[in-house]
Structures are given as C-alpha cells and as structure tokens.
C-alpha cells in the first residue's frame, strides 16, 4: 500500500533519513521503533508529504505522492505534538476539518469524540487546552474520517490511563477492520498485543523490518520490549566489534 524507495533527507549536516526503503501492506500494524532522533517522525512526515525528501520517492497505492495529493484523504494522522490554530474552539476545528475532508456525515466515526467526552469541551479554545486534551482531539481527528491508513506518532504520550485504554481498544478495533496502522511509541509494553510488524531505525538508517513472530523466534523473547532490547544490544555489540 505504501512503498518508500531509497528516501534520503538531510537537515543541514544532520542526515535524518539515510537511504530508507520500506513497504507497508493492508492489515498490518507496524511498530516504528528507535531511539530519539533516529528519523521516525521524519519518515512519517515524508509519507504525509509534510517533509520533502532530497532523493527517493514514496508511492501510495501505486501512485507517486508528489503528483497525487488526494491520497491524503485515506490517511488519518495523529501528530506527536498536536499543533492547532490557537484561536479556534474544538467545535470550530472539527467543523473545519469536516468541511475540508467533505465526507458524508454517516461515514464519520465519532466514537472517540464520545468516549473522550469532547462534547462537553466543544466551546473551549485550543490555546486553553491541556496537553492531554489536545492529544484526545488529535486522536479524535485521526479516526474521525475512518481512513484506510492510520499514522499515530506517540499516540499515548500525555494521555491518562483511562484514555490510553480507550485509544488502544479503538486501535485494535480498526486493526480488525483490516486497516494499515503505523505506530511509534516509546512505551513498548503497550504495543505487545497490537503489533504484527516491527521496524527498527537508528541514526536515520532502517536497521531491520521483520514480523513480530520472526523477531520473537530470533531473539527467544516473548515481550516486544525484551526482544527489542536484545536486538539493540546485539547491534551495539556489532558496532563495537566493527570499530575495534
């Protein structure tokens, strides 16, 4: 569904993406894992067309995203830090997004708005919201248009346990519908029962892309966090041997 080919992106001297290629298919739930500053968000933003890569290209359903902007109507994006027009109220923001996306109202998925009880806050301006409420709005917006692809950048950061549980249930429900879900998180224990594929990135390089089962088999660990820790250690060991 989404294929990236040899993506390279530099910010000045920093290489955020170094020749990254990957393929994501329908029905997968992919965990994008890596240390801070490893290029996860840059990768996500280049899939969304928010970052323009120096070289390489991305296709969505076989079409190059540079020429075909309509593909974004199939993506729900929940940013790491939700930044919204500060003067708008939640109600106005939702109305504007509905207006821009032009989906018929019966196809809208408002379960998250109800479960997060955002109805009570509709008249509040975005600048008065707490970080957690902002995250709730971001999540509600990402799922609102029932898109085929969900891209969630640190979805549970800043959410309280109740909201985290609601969001996780929602992700599971969407996964069952056969949607492609791309998720980054630092709290690996949350991903255990969701993930089918794991992508590990470091210093802008895609280190590996394996199915979770393969990873479990290779490392002999059942938990994702343990498995990743094993892999990270072996990578570090490898580097030490190379560097002498």
């Amino acid at each position: 569904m989404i294929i990236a080919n040899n993506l390279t992106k530099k910010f000045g001297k920093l290489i955020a993406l170094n020749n990254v290629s990957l393929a994501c298919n329908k029905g997968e739930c992919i965990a994008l894992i890596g240390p801070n500053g490893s290029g996860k968000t840059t990768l996500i933003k280049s899939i969304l067309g928010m970052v323009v890569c120096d070289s390489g290209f991305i296709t969505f359903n076989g079409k190059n995203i540079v020429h075909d902007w309509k593909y974004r109507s199939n993506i729900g994006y929940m940013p790491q830090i939700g930044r919204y027009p500060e003067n708008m109220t939640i109600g106005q923001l939702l109305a504007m997004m509905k207006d821009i996306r032009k989906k018929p109202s019966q196809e809208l998925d408002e379960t998250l708005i109800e479960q997060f009880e955002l109805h009570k806050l509709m008249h509040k301006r975005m600048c008065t919201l707490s970080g957690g409420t902002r995250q709730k709005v971001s999540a509600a917006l990402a799922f609102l248009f029932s898109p085929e692809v969900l891209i969630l950048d640190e979805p549970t950061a800043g959410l309280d346990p109740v909201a985290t549980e609601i969001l996780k249930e929602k992700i599971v429900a969407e996964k069952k519908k056969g949607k492609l879900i791309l998720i980054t998180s630092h709290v690996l224990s949350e991903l255990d029962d969701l993930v089918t594929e794991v992508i590990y990135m470091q210093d802008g390089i895609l280190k590996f892309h394996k199915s979770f089962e393969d990873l479990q088999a290779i490392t002999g660990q059942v938990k994702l966090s343990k498995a990743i820790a094993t892999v990270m250690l072996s990578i570090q060991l490898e580097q030490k041997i190379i560097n002498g």
Partner: protein
Amino acid sequence: MNKIIKYVIIDILRNKIMLAYTVFLLLISVSIFNLEDNSAKGLLSLLNIILIIIPLVSILFSAIYIYNSAEFLELLVSQPLTRKRIWLSVFAGLAISLMISFLIGAGLPILIYEPTAIGVMMTISGVFLSVIFAAIALLAAVNTRDKAKGIGIAILLWLYFSLLFDGLVLFVLFQFADYPLEKIMIGFTALNPIDLSRILILLKMDLSAMMGYTGAVFKSVFGTNIGTIISLLVLSLWMFIPAWLSLRKFNRKDL
C-alpha cells in the same frame, strides 16, 4: 479554494487588529478632509500618510500572520489539499482583508470627498500597495524559519522601499548630476512600487510643473494613458512575482 480563504478571513477578523486598522484609516482620512478647506490639499496630505502606513501595516501584519498560522498551515498540509491551494488561499485571504480595510477606511472617504481621476488613482494605488506588500511579506516569511528574523526582514524591507530607496536614488542623481539621467530615472521608479504609486498620483494632480525638467519627462511618460497602463502592469508584476516566488519556496518547504 474558497473554503480555506473563508477560514483565513474569519481568523483575521477574529483578532481585532484589522478592525482597528480600518477605523484608524477612516479617522485619519475623514479628519484630514474636514481640516482642509480645499479637498485637493487634503488629498496631498493623505497621500504621504497612505504611502507610509499602507505598506507598513500590510507587510507587518502579513508577516506576523504567516508566522502565527504555522500550526494552521501544518494542519492543512497533512490534509488532502495541494500546497499551492493552501498557500494561495492564505495569500488571497490576507490580500482581501487588507484590501477591504483600505477600501472602507480610505477608499470610501477619498471617493466621497474627491470623486475625480486623482481620487480614483489614489484608491487603485492603495489597493495595489496593500496586496504587493502582503506578497512581499509572504516571501520574507517563507524564507526564514525564525520568527523574529522574518519580521525583522519585513521591517527592513519596508524601510528600504519607503526611505532607503529614495536616498539611494538621490545619491545616484547627485553623483551623476552632469549626465542626463531623466530617462534612467523612469526605469528606477519601476524598481519601487511606493515611488511608482506616488508618481502616478502626483502626475494626476498636475503638480509635475513643480518638479522641473524631470517632472516634464515623467509627465511625458506617465501622463499618457499607455504610460499609466504600463505602470499598473509593473505594479501587477510587483504583486505576482513575490507571490509566485514564495509559492515555489513553500512547495519545497519542510513543515
């Protein structure tokens, strides 16, 4: 396209600065026309105020608006919209609201007190200047990530167009006083939209006689209909080229 323009205009109207700007222009123009017994004299006083205030407000407000709507732009770019459409809508929203403010605040009183060719020319120039400086602000803002730097550049650009440029021209004139520079001066004025508007309006006022030989040369070029049309075309270029350059930059910008 119009949907985003609508949201931009609503957003601009929500902060009351545009309203204050309109009221301010209205107060100045009405009081000037009422102070002077001769409305032509009033027009001359208004000319200088307009040529300074309109570019300043347009360039500053637009630059600050672009920086403040960084979140809005980021949000829109992740939606199924082309970047061209987003950027042109923001530009159109800014240009329309600046234009409406000017037309209500200054255009209307001018056309009521002085419904002549001069008044019409002044209104047209004001509209052009509003849009041109919004476009220049867009270009300055899209090229600099840092807000303080971007707004600083916008202020410097305004200083350049309204003060420094004239100084430079004067300097050149005095240095080369022995040479016939009248024709070259016409080319120079095309490099500054404020000067171009000023000359267009002054020539309509028949004040060119006071400007000596240069005035006569200007009159022979800008006084004709073709000259006026060419000047308006040059002003349009001042509007489109910065807007186009900023659009090109925005298309490749990382958000």
